C-alpha cells in the first residue's frame, strides 16, 4: 500500500536467531554528576516494538542517547546483533595514526633545526655555484649542510668557522653566536655572487683585523667528516625532536580516534535512527531537503555510486508521502506545525534506512487526535519490519502499538514486564 520500503542494508551476515537486535546489558549512565540510569537490562528483538514508560527525569532520554551513541556509558554495554557499536581499528586507522605521527614528528624536527640557514644552504646555494637543482644535488646539499652544522658546533670551541659548502675555513677569535653570525654572512655573500658576476666578495672583508684572525688551509670533506663525527648535538637534537614529535602526534591521533569510537555516526550507519523529544529538524532547510540530506547518507553507506543516481530524491518523495507531507516538500521546515515537524523528523530518521528506530516521547506537545494519527504512522513503520523503541511518560495510543511496555522508575527497571 505504501510505496516506502526499508532499504536493504549492505553486508552483515544474518545474526543467529537467539541474539536480539538490541541488547542493553547492565547499562549505567551518568549525566554530569547525577546518576541517570543504573544497571539497566533491555532487549529488543528484530521487528519488535518496546515502549519504555516512566515519569520525567527517569533517564529515558539518557538511555536513548547512550544507545544512539550521543553519550558514553559509565559502565555496561550496548550491543547490536551481538556486536558492540564501536568503530573497529582498521588498517586505514593504523596508517592514518602513523601518518599523523610522522607529520607532527617532521614538523618538530624542522623546528629543531634552523630553517632559514637550511633553506639558504640547500635551496639557494645552487645559485652561487651554478649547479642544477635535482634530487641528487638536493640530497648532497642537505648532507653537506648538516656536516657543516656539525663542524661548526665542533669548531666553535676553537673559534673557527666553516661555510655551508664546506670549502672555506677561517679562524676567528669570537664566541659561538658571533661565529654563527659570521657563517650566515658568508653564506649570504656566496649567494650574492650570482647577482653580479663581477662582485665576488673577498673574505677578508668579513674578517677585518688581520691580527685577530688568521686564515687556515681549506679543509677537505674527509676532515669535515672526522670533525662532524665527534659531535652529535645537532643530529641528536633532530632525532630527538622527530621521536618526540612522533610520539606526540600518535598519542593525539589515538586520543581523537578513541573519543570518536562510540560516535552517533557509527550507530547511524549500523541502522539506528532516532527522533528527539523536541523535534530537531533543520529549520533553514525545506522539508524536502531535510529528508534528502538523510537519504543521501544512506545512499553513501550503500555505495558511493548512488551519489550520482536519483535514488535519494525518489526515496525522499516516497518518505514524504508516507508520513503524509505530500506537497509540503518546498515549505521551509520552520514554517511547519509542531505535529508536521514531528512527522518530518520521523521521515528524516526513516530516510537512513534504520532497523531500529528510537523515538523519544513522541506524544509531547501533540493533541490526542495528533497522537492517534502519529501512532497509526508508527504502526505502519512497524509493519515494514523496523524495530521500535519508544519512551513515554504516560500510557496512551502510542504505547498501545508496542508489543511490550517496560516501566522505569528512578533509573531502575520495574521487574514485572506487562504485556501491552
Amino acid at each position: 500500500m505504501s510505496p516506502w520500503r526499508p532499504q536493504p542494508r549492505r553486508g552483515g551476515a544474518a545474526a543467529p536467531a537467539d541474539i536480539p537486535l538490541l541488547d542493553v546489558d547492565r547499562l549505567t549512565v551518568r549525566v554530569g554528576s547525577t546518576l541517570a540510569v543504573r544497571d539497566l537490562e533491555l532487549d529488543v528483538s528484530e521487528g519488535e516494538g518496546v515502549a519504555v514508560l516512566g515519569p520525567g527525569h527517569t533517564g529515558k532520554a539518557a538511555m536513548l542517547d547512550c544507545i544512539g551513541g550521543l553519550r558514553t556509558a559509565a559502565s555496561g554495554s550496548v550491543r547490536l546483533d551481538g556486536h558492540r557499536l564501536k568503530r573497529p581499528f582498521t588498517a586505514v586507522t593504523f596508517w592514518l595514526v602513523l601518518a599523523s605521527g610522522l607529520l607532527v614528528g617532521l614538523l618538530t624536527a624542522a623546528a629543531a633545526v634552523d630553517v632559514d640557514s637550511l633553506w639558504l644552504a640547500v635551496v639557494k646555494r645552487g645559485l652561487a655555484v651554478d649547479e642544477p637543482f635535482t634530487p641528487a644535488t638536493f640530497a648532497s646539499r642537505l648532507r653537506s649542510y648538516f656536516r657543516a652544522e656539525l663542524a661548526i658546533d665542533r669548531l666553535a670551541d676553537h673559534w673557527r668557522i666553516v661555510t655551508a659548502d664546506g670549502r672555506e675555513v677561517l679562524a676567528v677569535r669570537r664566541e659561538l653566536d658571533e661565529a654563527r653570525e659570521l657563517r650566515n654572512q658568508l653564506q649570504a655573500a656566496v649567494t650574492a655572487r650570482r647577482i653580479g658576476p663581477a662582485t665576488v666578495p673577498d673574505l677578508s672583508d668579513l674578517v677585518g683585523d688581520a691580527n685577530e684572525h688568521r686564515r687556515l688551509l681549506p679543509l677537505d670533506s674527509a676532515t669535515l667528516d672526522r670533525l662532524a663525527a665527534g659531535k652529535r648535538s645537532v643530529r641528536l637534537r633532530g632525532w630527538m625532536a622527530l621521536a618526540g614529535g612522533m610520539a606526540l602526534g600518535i598519542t593525539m591521533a589515538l586520543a581523537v580516534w578513541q573519543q570518536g569510537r562510540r560516535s552517533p555516526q557509527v550507530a547511524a550507519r549500523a541502522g539506528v535512527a532516532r527522533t528527539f523529544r523536541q523535534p530537531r529538524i533543520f529549520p533553514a532547510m525545506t522539508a524536502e531537503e531535510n529528508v534528502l540530506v538523510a537519504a543521501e547518507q544512506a545512499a553513501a553507506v550503500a555505495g558511493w555510486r548512488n551519489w550520482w543516481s536519483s535514488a535519494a530524491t525518489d526515496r525522499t518523495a516516497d518518505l514524504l508521502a508516507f508520513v503524509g507531507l505530500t506537497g509540503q516538500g518546498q515549505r521551509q521546515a520552520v514554517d511547519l506545525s509542531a505535529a508536521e515537524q514531528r512527522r518530518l523528523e520521523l521521515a528524516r530518521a526513516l530516510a537512513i534506512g534504520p532497523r531500529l528506530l528510537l523515538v523519544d516521547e513522541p506524544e509531547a506537545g501533540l493533541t490526542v487526535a495528533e497522537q492517534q494519527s502519529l501512532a497509526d504512522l508508527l504502526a505502519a513503520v512497524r509493519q515494514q519490519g523496523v524495530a521500535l523503541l519508544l519512551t513515554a511518560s504516560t500510557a496512551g495510543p502510542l504505547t498501545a502499538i508496542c508489543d511490550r511496555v517496560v516501566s522505569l522508575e528512578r533509573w531502575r527497571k520495574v521487574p514485572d514486564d506487562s504485556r501491552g
Partner: protein
Amino acid sequence: MRTANQQLSSLSHWLTRNWELPTFGLLALTPWVLADTFGGIGGPLTSVLILCIAALGLNVVVGFTGLLHLGSAAFMGIGGLLLAILTVPTNPLEIGFLPALVASVLITAAVSGLLAAATLRLRSDSLAVVTLGFGEVVRALLGNLEQVTGGMQGLSPVPPPGAGLAVVGIDLGRAFVIDPRWFYFLALGCLVALVLALRRLEQSAIGRDWIAFREDPVAAATLGISSARVRLSAFAIAAAITGLAGCLSAANLGTTGDPHSYGFGRSVAILCAVMLGGLGSLPGTLLGVAILFGLDIVVIPAADAWLQQLQPWSSAAGPLTLGSWRLALVGLALIVMMRFRPEGLLPSRRLVAELREARR
C-alpha cells in the same frame, strides 16, 4: 495595468534570482565604460575582485558550516608565498605559472585540512581562537623566515602569468605587465568560474551536509553525517579558494608583500565583508566586499583625488580628505547594519529562516 512599484519589486525579485549575468556583464564591460580612467583604477578594481574570491572562500566555512574562522588571510599568505617560492627567479625551481598555481592551491588546502584535523573536537568559539592564533603564527613566520619568505619586503619579483609565453604573437608576460585589463579579466574569469562552482556545490550532497551540520550538529550526527568529514572538507575547500586569491594577489602585485597584510586585521575585514553582505549568500558576499573594500580601495582614493583637484575648502588644516574618515565610516555602517538588518544586505533564504527561528 501594473504600477511602477509592482514593476520595481518584480524586477528586484528577478534580480535576486538571476544576479550573475547582469553583475558579471557589467563588470566585464567596465574596462570599456571607464576606458580613460581604467589605467589608474584597473589595479584597485582587480584587487577588489581578488578579495571577492577570498571572501567566497571564507564564506564556505563561516557561511555554510557555521564555524567561526578568524585566520582566513593567513591562507592568502600561504597561497601567495607558495606561488612565489615556486616561480620567483631567485629560487631554483622557477616552474610555470599554471603548475605553480595548482600546486600552491593544493598545498594550501592540505595545510588547512591539517589545521581542521587538529581542531576536530573544538567547538566553534574555541576554534575561532585557534584559527586566530594560527593566522598570527603564519604572519610571524612570513616576517621572520627571511631566507624562505623574503622577510618584511616579501618575495619578489613574482613573474606575471604566462611570462615568456607567446600566444599568437603576443608576449603574455609583457601584456600582463603593461595592460591592467589582462589581469582584470583573469581575476574576473576566476571569480565567475568560482561562483558557478560554489552554486553547484551548495546544491550538492556535500553542501547539504554542511548546512545540516551548521543547523544542528547533534541531529546531523544521528543521521550519520560525520562532523570530521564536514569540517575537513569545508576547511580544505575554503583554503583552496582563499589560497587561489593569495596566488592571484601575489602575481598581480608582483610580490608577496608585507606580511602584515595577511594578519588579523585583514582576516577580520574579510569576515566583516561577508557578514555585511549576508552569511552563506554568494551575491551577498560579493556585495559586502564591493561595499567594504570597494569603498576603501577604489572609491575613496578616487574621490580624494577629485577633491584635491577641486580644492573647495583650502584651509590651514590641509586639504579635506575622505581617506582619514574611512575607518569611522565603515565602523558606523557596520553598527547600523547589525542593528537594523542583522541577516546582511542580501541574505540567503536559509539564514532568514534561521534567524526567524532564533527570534521565536
